[in-house]
């Protein structure tokens, strides 16, 4: 029983990681209707910047944290304006290829500038905090808290601020949005900036657990992707829940059902199965198209 609880909580802890990445993916999807394959590598690169600030320039953790988030926001905005704007009108797949190009570039930059050996990344949550239990380390609890905060902030932003409303409008119906005076292009850039910022947070929460190296996010991106789709690509809360589900499923499957040797295959079958029954994800909105 104890082992089961362990696997469950360990799965939830992993799920928090996947949920954070899923959130960033949903963020970009909501504002641009594209899935950003370079999300993971951008997050890794941001985390490297934070690492360099803390370990080489001697900054304090929180100073480096907020600075990195700000820089990532700016970088995301710049990438959208400079790299993606020229192909806004191009077919979807052209955009996908550009994302892949970005993925390769960020990954190679991380390796070139920061080397391929693994690095330890500090956690801001002290490991001997009274909140820590055998099942959840202080860091994992802290990460969950941070994720919750980000989720609430996003919710508030989209629901209650005019900028948030403008962004949603720009994504849903760019032409109508333009007619009411919304600068659609800038909304896209904003979406990217936010996603990059969220990605940076996710990276900094993940790194203490999995250790920082250029390929840190490769495996996580897939599971984040799965979580986002499982929960419904247009639903931030769904993305987080999807991430948690994927984390738990992965652990339980590997430990009890099929062994680690076929874990990926079974996960695949389950994802496809779920999507067969609920094609828009567990919490997604059904999209009805006009003929």
């Amino acid at each position, binding site marked *: 029983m104890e082992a089961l609880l362990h696997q469950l909580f360990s799965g939830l802890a992993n799920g928090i990681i996947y949920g954070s990445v899923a959130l960033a993916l949903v963020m970009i999807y909501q504002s641009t209707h594209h899935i950003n394959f370079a999300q993971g590598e951008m997050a890794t690169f941001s985390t490297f910047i934070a690492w360099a600030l803390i370990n080489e320039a001697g900054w304090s953790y929180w100073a480096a944290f907020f600075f990195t988030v700000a820089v990532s926001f700016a970088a995301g905005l710049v990438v959208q304006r400079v790299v993606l704007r020229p192909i806004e009108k191009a077919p979807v797949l052209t955009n996908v290829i550009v994302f892949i*190009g970005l993925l390769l570039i960020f990954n190679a930059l991380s390796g070139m500038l920061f080397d391929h050996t693994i690095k330890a990344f500090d956690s801001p949550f002290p490991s001997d905090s009274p909140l820590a239990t055998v099942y959840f380390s202080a860091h994992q609890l802290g990460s969950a808290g941070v994720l919750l905060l980000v989720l609430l902030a996003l919710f508030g932003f989209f629901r209650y601020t005019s900028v948030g409303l403008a962004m949603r409008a720009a994504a849903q119906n760019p032409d109508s949005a333009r007619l009411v005076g919304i600068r659609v292009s800038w909304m896209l850039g904003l979406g990217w900036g936010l996603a990059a910022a969220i990605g940076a947070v996710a990276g900094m929460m993940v790194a203490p657990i999995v250790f920082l190296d250029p390929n840190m996010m490769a495996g996580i991106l897939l599971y984040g992707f799965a979580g986002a789709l499982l929960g419904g*690509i247009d639903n931030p809360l769904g993305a987080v829940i999807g991430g948690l589900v994927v984390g738990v499923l992965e652990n339980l499957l590997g430990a009890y059902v099929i062994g680690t040797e076929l874990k990926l295959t079974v996960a695949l079958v389950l994802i496809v199965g779920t999507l067969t029954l609920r*094609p828009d994800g567990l919490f997604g909105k059904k999209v009805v198209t006009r003929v």
Partner: protein
Amino acid sequence: MKPLDKKWVWLWSALLLVALILLPFLVKNYRVFQINLVLVYAIAILGLNMLTGFNGQISLGHGAFYAFGAYSAAVLMDKLGVPYWATLPVAFGVCFVLGFLLGFPALRLAGHYLALATFALALAVPQLLKYKHIEHLTGGVQGIVLNKPTPPISFTFLDQPFSADRWLYFFSLAVAGIMFLMAWNILRGRVGRALIAVRDHPIAATAMGINLTMFKSLTFGVSAGITGVAGALGGIVVAFVSPDSFTVNLSIFLLVGVVVGGLASIPGAIFGGMFIQFVPNIADEISRSAPAAIYGVLLIGCMYLMPSGVMGGLNKLWVRLRTKTAG
């Protein structure tokens, strides 16, 4: 604007044929090997293009079919002593069935969801290939080493011997020719129009009586089959298969090849094949410490210059030239 003279078409085709025949004897063996790989990738891209370009179903997992084709060929050749040319139809059959079966759930998934499902497939394949209970067949993590087929006749031409690689060049050329012809045949008739109708206006297409279910599944099947043949051919050309040769990167590169070559374009597949074979080597020569970054930059640059792929770019150029001469 008068249409091209039939004479000219024949002349250019003949010249092309002669060039293709002479090519392997004008370059070293190693280059011939690379050209063979271009042909193999072109066939794989053709398969994927049928599904993604013509039918609008995004697959990020075609590397899986390539892998299954390669392993089918390898196991047949290694364990059952089947001659290499006979493995190709079997690879087609196996992958066709797999693709067809996968087509059914794929129906319910649109766009990104399908991409995810196929992506997960691509990720799962290496693990599947390493599974210990089929290790005696697949060679497990060590893979299977194959023997290169010997050419049926031996001679020397233009100072170069008729090596295994040169023989495989002509073999691959023939296979590619057959695959391209098959695709062209399928796509130019009613089937092709139906495919495009399904891609662009699925609801209207159903209203017109096209059986969506059958159609999408068959498309998936044929697309998988063609890529499977490419995989088998690839296995023969490289003479080695192992799970690490078929990671998710392969699926991503095939998609890159489709888009760079030109969506919904049959000849585009050749350009796609050339891109994914040669551009990484070029990137490697420009920068050893970060070759992937250079590749990424070249990729993005390519998309800027030719958002509809090479064929799109060539078409635009052709139109410009024609209007110039007409006016």
